[in-house]
């Protein structure tokens, strides 16, 4: 197990025949009558990056939230590290780091208090908090309530929160929004390709996302436009 932990590739040992970090098959999700996702099928190998592309309202955030176990699929299957969502959902959370549109931090608590809270929730050692704050370059502002920080600082802390428990899977919804170029580089080892984690990356910066990705998924009005290695035409078509 130590070995598995070190290489990351065998991280799925213990689950029978799991060679995909994420497996979606005919996934569907509605809000009331509106279909937000339908017939999404894709596989992602452990350690790889999936870029999710699509216009506003295509269902990208919805997909991430389904994968995170925050929304329940209405049809089809979704497996994360072999655990079916939502039935085996309780296996998922500790393995997932989620960085979304909202920072999911309390505005009236300081950075340190927020992260300490999350460390306790995840049963992670408190020394990780100091490390995480340092890793996002926020040591000097760690003891101010979040409402007094700039938007980009809050985004850094949200990233620190997402990786605090060292999750093997990262769900990233426009993670670079609000980050300055230096911060984006600083966070690369945490949430970038260099992190060695399996990643699902939603981004509107198409070029960059495709450059980072092993597999791309195109969504349009909830339907899968392409999955795999898209040609430029397909991508252009996606936003038309």
């Amino acid at each position, binding site marked *: 197990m130590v070995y598995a932990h070190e290489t990351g590739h065998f991280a799925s040992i213990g689950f029978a025949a799991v060679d995909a970090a994420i497996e979606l098959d005919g996934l569907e999700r509605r*809000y*009331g009558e509106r279909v937000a996702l339908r017939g999404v099928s894709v596989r992602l190998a452990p350690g790889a990056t999936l870029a999710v592309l699509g216009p506003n309202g295509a269902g990208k955030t919805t997909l991430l939230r389904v994968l995170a176990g925050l929304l*329940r699929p*209405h049809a089809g299957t979704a497996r994360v590290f072999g655990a079916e969502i939502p039935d085996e959902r309780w296996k998922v959370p500790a393995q997932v780091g989620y960085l979304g549109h909202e920072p999911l931090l309390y505005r009236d608590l300081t950075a340190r208090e927020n992260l300490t809270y999350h460390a306790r929730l995840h049963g992670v050692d408190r020394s990780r908090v100091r490390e995480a704050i340092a890793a996002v370059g926020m040591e000097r502002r760690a003891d101010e309530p979040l409402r007094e920080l700039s938007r980009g600082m809050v985004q850094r802390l949200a990233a620190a929160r997402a990786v605090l428990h060292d999750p093997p899977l990262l769900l990233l919804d426009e993670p670079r929004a609000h980050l300055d170029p230096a911060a984006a580089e600083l966070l690369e080892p945490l949430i970038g390709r260099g992190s060695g984690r399996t990643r699902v990356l939603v981004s509107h910066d198409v070029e960059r996302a495709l450059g980072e990705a092993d597999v791309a998924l195109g969504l349009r009005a909830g339907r899968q436009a392409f999955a795999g290695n898209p040609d430029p035409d397909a991508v252009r078509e996606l936003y038309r």
Partner: protein
Amino acid sequence: MYSKGLIPLAGATVVTLAAAMALVFFYAPLDADQGFVQKIFYVHVPMAIVSLCGFVAGGIMAIKYLRSRDPSWDMRSYVAIHISIILGVGVLATGAIWAKASWGHWWVWDEPVLVSFLVVVLLYCVYYPLRFSIEDRERQARYSSVFAIAAGAFVPLNFAAVRMAEAYTHPRVLSQTGGNLPGEMRLTFLVSLLAMTLLYVTLWKLELTSKHASMQLKRLKRKLAEREAVAA
């Protein structure tokens, strides 16, 4: 699927109701000090008992829903509560009439049984806004079930509390195991209770059947619309 056995059940209900009616009017003796008004007892009390049992049953069906995640259990629970509320309103109405006749007031506030029953009915009235302010079917079923379970547990607790706080004017027949009811009254009462129970079950089945049918219809319509959309 819910219509199975509905017709014999309805038949039995009608027969028992008729029998109860006959017993009430022609067999049971006239009450010594209340006179004819006392006849309302045979509607009022069975209705109260059935309605309260229906609430508890709705809670049990809700447990089944949470266990099985089968939406039909949620439907059953919903309909059970729905009909119990209707009967509950009936209890309040008949009770009020009786109260006016025998106590001279439509309502007395310092009578725990009345107040506690009102509290139960009011609590269950919140079931509707709670249920229908949630759009997602699955979540609606889950939240409604949690409510139904908590409220179902609340009903007996509430009555325990109320019974402990001594009652003054409201009669306590069943708690004395009906011991002081004259035999004829007792028989009439039991038949009425059976009739009310059957009526409840029949209404429940009927409502489920019609709910099921209209849902089926909606589903077909949606399928059709989708097919048209695809064709277009």
